[in-house]
C-alpha cells in the first residue's frame, strides 16, 4: 500500500471535516422528530472514516469505527430508538474516533482503555435488534476479515464479477459494434473527427422540432456521415406516427475552427429533450491548469497537426471533468459537469479550488503594501503644478480605483461566515450546561454574516468566555427558574450582523442579570471606584470590564482559570473592537461586541490638525462643512454645539483633546467633520483641513505600545510618517469627560455611555493618571 500512503493527508483532512459534520449532526439529534437525512449523513461520515482507515491499515481505528457505524446503522434503520443516553454515547464515540484519528496521524498508539468503555456503551444499544448485526460483525478483530487482511489468498474475498453479468456484457458487445471504434482510419491531418450520438426523446416532434434540420446543420459544419438507428422502432402496428423512434450517430470531419460550441448550437433548442453525446478525436491538449478554464466554456479543440499515423491515446476531448494525472490529490479544479446538451446542471458542480491560506495571506499583505505605495505616489503628485500632468493624475485616479477594487476582491476571498465559529458553540453550551447542572437552549442567528478571516479567528475566545459567563453566572438553576416562573431551560441567543461598517455580535441570556450591588462593592473593595461615587446602572454593569476586576469568586467548576471579562475586553480592543454590556436584573444580560470587518485595510479620510495628521474611518463620516458663525451656539457655557442637518451636534476640538499646538480653534475658520458612531450619535470634529480620501493599511499601535483613548490604530501615510486612525466612539467618550482641557482627568470612574441606544456600547476606558 505504499503507493496509496500519499493520500494519508487527504484522508486526515477529509476525516476532520467528516467528524465535524458528525458532531454537528449529533448535537442536533434529540428524541422526538428525527431528521433521517442527518442520521444518514452521520452514518456516512463514520462509514467513510472507517473505509479510508482500512486502506491505510489503521486497524484499531477501523475496529472502533465499525462499532460506531453499526449503532448508527441501527439508528437509521429505526431499529435503535433515539434517547438522550444514546446521543451522549454517540457524541462520546465521535470524540474517541477523533482521538484515534489523531493518534493515527501522529503515528502513536492510543493508550489502552481509550475505546473500551465506549465500545461497551455502544454495544449495549445493540441489544436484541443489533444481535444480527453483531453476529455478522462479530468481535472487533474478526469484524473486518477482508479489510484487515489486505492481501488475502482467496481473491474472491476482495472482488468478484457476477458471472451472468459478464456473460451478458460480452454477448451484447459482440452484437453491437462500438460506434466510435468503427472507423479505424486515422483522423486526416488538419481535421477533427466528432462523433455525435443524437438520441432524441420520443416526444421531440411534438414540440415542432425536426431532426432532419439538425442533421442538415451538422452537415454544413463539415463532412458528415450519418447512421440512423432503428433499434427503437416498433412494428408498424404499434407505431405512433407522432412520436419519434429514431436515433442517429453522426461522424463529422470538421476543420479545427469548428468548436464544440458550434455543434452544441445545432441542438440548442432540443438539448433538454434529448440524449446527446458529443466526443471528439484529437490528441489530448497540453495540460491546461484547471483553474484557467472557465467552467461554462467548452475546451477549444486543439489545432492542426496530429501525430502520425494513429493518434495514440486519443482521449475524447470533452469539457467534462478530467483532471490531469499530475494533479496533486485534493488539489486542482474539479468540474463534474461542464458540457451542454442533455446534461442537467443541477448537480452541485464544484467550481472551487483549494488554496493554501498562506498564499492568500501573502496576497492580502501585498495588496496592503500596494495601497501604501499608491498613496505615496499620490502624495508626491500632489506637489505637481496644477493644470499640467492631467493624464498622469487621471491615470493615478484610475489606479486608485483599481487598487480599491482589488483590495475588496482579495479581502472577500478571505472573508468567512461566522458560522465557522458559531458552529463550535452548541458543543460548548452542552458542556457548560452539563457541568453547571443547568438547562440551556442556544439560539443563533446571522451565521452567514461574513468577516475577514483575521477577525473570525479572534472571535472564538471572547465568545467562549461570554457564553461561559452567561451560563455560569447569568442563568439560574432550573429549579430556581421554575420557582420564579421562567421556563426551566434558559436561553442563550447568539447573533451576528453587519452594522455601519463593522460586525456586531451579541450574546444575550434570559438569566438573572448583573448583581449590581455585588459588582459595585467589589469594585470599591479593589480600589477601582471611589466609595461614595455615584454611578449609573449602566456604569456599574460595565465595571466588570475593568482590569483587575475578575476575582477568585469568578472561578467556578467551569472556568477554573477564572478568565475575566477584563481579559476579554483587552483582547477585543487590541483588534480595534469594543465590548459592552446591558443588563436588566431578573431578566437577563446582553453583551454587545463590535469588531471591524477586517484588520487589514480601511477606507479613510485624512485630516490635519496643526502639524499632525489623522485618519477618520469613512464609515463614520457624514459630511464635512465650514459652519457659519450663526450656526454655532454655546451650551451652558461648557461646550459648543452646532446646528447640522436639523439637529444640534456637540463640537469637539481635536487639538484640545490631543493637546496639539498651533491648530485652528475657531470652527468657522477651519472645518467641521460631522461623524457618527455605531449607535447613531453624532459629533462635530473641528479640524484644520480635510486632506483627502485614502485607503490605508491598518497597523497596530498596541502590539508594540498600548491602546490609546480615541485611537483605533495607526497607519503609514504616503510620506512615510505615522498617522493615527481615530476611534470616533472613543473620541466621544474622551470629550464627554472634560478631556478637552488637554489633560485626561484623573479618577478611575468609567465614563457613562448615557445614550440608551440598543446597539453597541463603547467599552470602558480606564482613565489615565498623569
Amino acid at each position, binding site marked *: 500500500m505504499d503507493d496509496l500512503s500519499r493520500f494519508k493527508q487527504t484522508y486526515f483532512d477529509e476525516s476532520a471535516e467528516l467528524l465535524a459534520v458528525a458532531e454537528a449532526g449529533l448535537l442536533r439529534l434529540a428524541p422526538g422528530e428525527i431528521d433521517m437525512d442527518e442520521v444518514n449523513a452521520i452514518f456516512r461520515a463514520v462509514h467513510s472514516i472507517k473505509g479510508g482507515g482500512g486502506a491505510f491499515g489503521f486497524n484499531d481505528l477501523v475496529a472502533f469505527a465499525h462499532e460506531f457505524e453499526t449503532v448508527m446503522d441501527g439508528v437509521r434503520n429505526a431499529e435503535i430508538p433515539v434517547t438522550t443516553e444514546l446521543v451522549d454515547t454517540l457524541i462520546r464515540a465521535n470524540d474517541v474516533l477523533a482521538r484515534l484519528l489523531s493518534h493515527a496521524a501522529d503515528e502513536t498508539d492510543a493508550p489502552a482503555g481509550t475505546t473500551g468503555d465506549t465500545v461497551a456503551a455502544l454495544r449495549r444499544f445493540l441489544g436484541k435488534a443489533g444481535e444480527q448485526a453483531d453476529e455478522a460483525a462479530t468481535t472487533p478483530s474478526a469484524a473486518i476479515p477482508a479489510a484487515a487482511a489486505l492481501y488475502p489468498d482467496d481473491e474472491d474475498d476482495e472482488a468478484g464479477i457476477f458471472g451472468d453479468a459478464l456473460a451478458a456484457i460480452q454477448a451484447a458487445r459482440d452484437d453491437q459494434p462500438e460506434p466510435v471504434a468503427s472507423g479505424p482510419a486515422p483522423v486526416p491531418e488538419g481535421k477533427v473527427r466528432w462523433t455525435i450520438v443524437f438520441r432524441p426523446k420520443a416526444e421531440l416532434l411534438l414540440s415542432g422540432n425536426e431532426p432532419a434540420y439538425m442533421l442538415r446543420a451538422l452537415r454544413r459544419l463539415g463532412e458528415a456521415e450519418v447512421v440512423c438507428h432503428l433499434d427503437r422502432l416498433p412494428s408498424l402496428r404499434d407505431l405512433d406516427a407522432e412520436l419519434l423512434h429514431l436515433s442517429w450517430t453522426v461522424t463529422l470531419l470538421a476543420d479545427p475552427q469548428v468548436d464544440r460550441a458550434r455543434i452544441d448550437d445545432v441542438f440548442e433548442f432540443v438539448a433538454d429533450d434529448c440524449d446527446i453525446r458529443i466526443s471528439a478525436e484529437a490528441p489530448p491538449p497540453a495540460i491546461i491548469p484547471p483553474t484557467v478554464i472557465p467552467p461554462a466554456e467548452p475546451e477549444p479543440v486543439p489545432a492542426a497537426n496530429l501525430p502520425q499515423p494513429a493518434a495514440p491515446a486519443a482521449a475524447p476531448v470533452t469539457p467534462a471533468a478530467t483532471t490531469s494525472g499530475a494533479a496533486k490529490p485534493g488539489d486542482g479544479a474539479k468540474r463534474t459537469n461542464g458540457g451542454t446538451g442533455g446534461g442537467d446542471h443541477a448537480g452541485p458542480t464544484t467550481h472551487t479550488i483549494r488554496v493554501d491560506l498562506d498564499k492568500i495571506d501573502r496576497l492580502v499583505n501585498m495588496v496592503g503594501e500596494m495601497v501604501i505605495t499608491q498613496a505615496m505616489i499620490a502624495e508626491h503628485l500632489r506637489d505637481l503644478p496644477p493644470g499640467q500632468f492631467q493624464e498622469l493624475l487621471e491615470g493615478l485616479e484610475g489606479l486608485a480605483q483599481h487598487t480599491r477594487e482589488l483590495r475588496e476582491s482579495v479581502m472577500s476571498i478571505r472573508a468567512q461566515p461566522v458560522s465557522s465559529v458559531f458552529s463550535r458553540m452548541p458543543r460548548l453550551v452542552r458542556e457548560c450546561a452539563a457541568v453547571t447542572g443547568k438547562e440551556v437552549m442556544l439560539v443563533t442567528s446571522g451565521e452567514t454574516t461574513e468577516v475577514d478571516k483575521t477577525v473570525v479567528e479572534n472571535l472564538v475566545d471572547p465568545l467562549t468566555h461570554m457564553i461561559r459567563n452567561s451560563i455560569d453566572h447569568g442563568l439560574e438553576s432550573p429549579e430556581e427558574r421554575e420557582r420564579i416562573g421562567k421556563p426551566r431551560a434558559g436561553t442563550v441567543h447568539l447573533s451576528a450582523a453587519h452594522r455601519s461598517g463593522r460586525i456586531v455580535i451579541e450574546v444575550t441570556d434570559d438569566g438573572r442579570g448583573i448583581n449590581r450591588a455585588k459588582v459595585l462593592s467589589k469594585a470599591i473593595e479593589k480600589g477601582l471606584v471611589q466609595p461614595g461615587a455615584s454611578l449609573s446602572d449602566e456604569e456599574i454593569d460595565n465595571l466588570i470590564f475593568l*482590569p483587575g476586576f475578575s476575582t477568585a469568586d469568578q472561578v467556578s467548576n467551569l472556568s477554573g482559570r477564572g478568565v475575566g471579562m477584563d481579559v476579554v475586553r483587552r483582547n477585543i480592543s487590541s483588534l480595534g473592537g469594543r465590548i459592552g454590556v446591558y443588563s436588566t436584573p431578573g431578566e437577563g444580560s446582553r453583551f454587545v461586541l463590535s469588531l471591524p470587518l477586517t484588520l487589514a485595510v480601511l477606507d479613510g479620510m485624512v485630516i490635519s490638525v496643526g502639524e499632525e495628521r489623522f485618519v477618520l474611518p469613512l464609515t463614520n463620516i457624514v459630511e464635512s462643512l465650514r459652519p457659519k458663525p450663526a450656526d454655532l451656539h454655546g451650551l451652558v457655557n461648557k461646550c459648543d454645539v452646532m446646528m447640522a442637518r436639523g439637529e444640534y451636534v456637540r463640537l469637539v476640538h481635536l487639538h484640545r483633546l490631543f*493637546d496639539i499646538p498651533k491648530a485652528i480653534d475657531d470652527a468657522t475658520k477651519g472645518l467641521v467633520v460631522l461623524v457618527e458612531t455605531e449607535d447613531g450619535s453624532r459629533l462635530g470634529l473641528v479640524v484644520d483641513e480635510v486632506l483627502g480620501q485614502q485607503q490605508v493599511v491598518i*497597523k497596530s499601535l498596541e502590539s*508594540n505600545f498600548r491602546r*490609546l483613548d480615541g485611537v483605533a490604530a495607526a497607519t503609514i501615510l504616503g510620506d*512615510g510618517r505615522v498617522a493615527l486612525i481615530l476611534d470616533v466612539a472613543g473620541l466621544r467618550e474622551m470629550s464627554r469627560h472634560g478631556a478637552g482641557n488637554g489633560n485626561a482627568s484623573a479618577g478611575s470612574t468609567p465614563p457613562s455611555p448615557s445614550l440608551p441606544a440598543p446597539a453597541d456600547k463603547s467599552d470602558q476606558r480606564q482613565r489615565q493618571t498623569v
Partner: protein
Amino acid sequence: MSSSTAIAPVSSRTDLQPSGTANGSEEQYVTFTVGSEEYGVNILAVREIRGWTPESRLPNLPDYVRGVINLRGIIIPIFDLRARFGGGQTQVTKRHVVVVMQVGERTRGILVDAISDILAIGHDAIKPPPDVDSGLIDAEYLSGLYTAENRMVTLLNVGKLFAGEHVDQDASRAALEPT
C-alpha cells in the same frame, strides 16, 4: 554614515540565554550616553541602532513618550531616555541615536545622545546599585553598576525601564531581566 546598523538578528524569546561567550558568565552590553552619564543594555535585546527620524506625536502622554515611527512597516514608540530620568525632553538633532530594542513581544526605540561602546561584562563585575532612597530613584530598572576604566556605566533592565501604567497596561508582560 548609514542611518541604521543592524545588530545580529535576535530571537524574540524573552528568556535570554547568555550567548556562548568564551567566558561562560560574561555577557555583552551596548553602552550609550545621555548627557554626562553612560548606560548599558544587554546586547541580546538590541535589534538595531538608527539615526533619529521625526516621530508622529501621541496625545496625552508623559513627556518621555516622544511619539511613534514607522520601522519598515511596523509602528514602534520612541522613548526619550533623558526625559525618563527627569532631565526634560531632548533637544533632538539628526545626530542623535535611537536604540531599537526588543522586549518580549514588543519592539521599542529609546532616544539617546550617542553610542559609546560594546562591552563584555562578567556577572561578578556588576555591582548592585547603592542604597539610595527609593523615593529618589525608581530602582526597579537599574540592574547594576559597572566600572569600565574610570567610567561608571549604569546597567539598565530593559523590560522594567518602560513598564508601568503609562506604557504597558499589563506590566506582567514585561520581559525578564537580561542578567
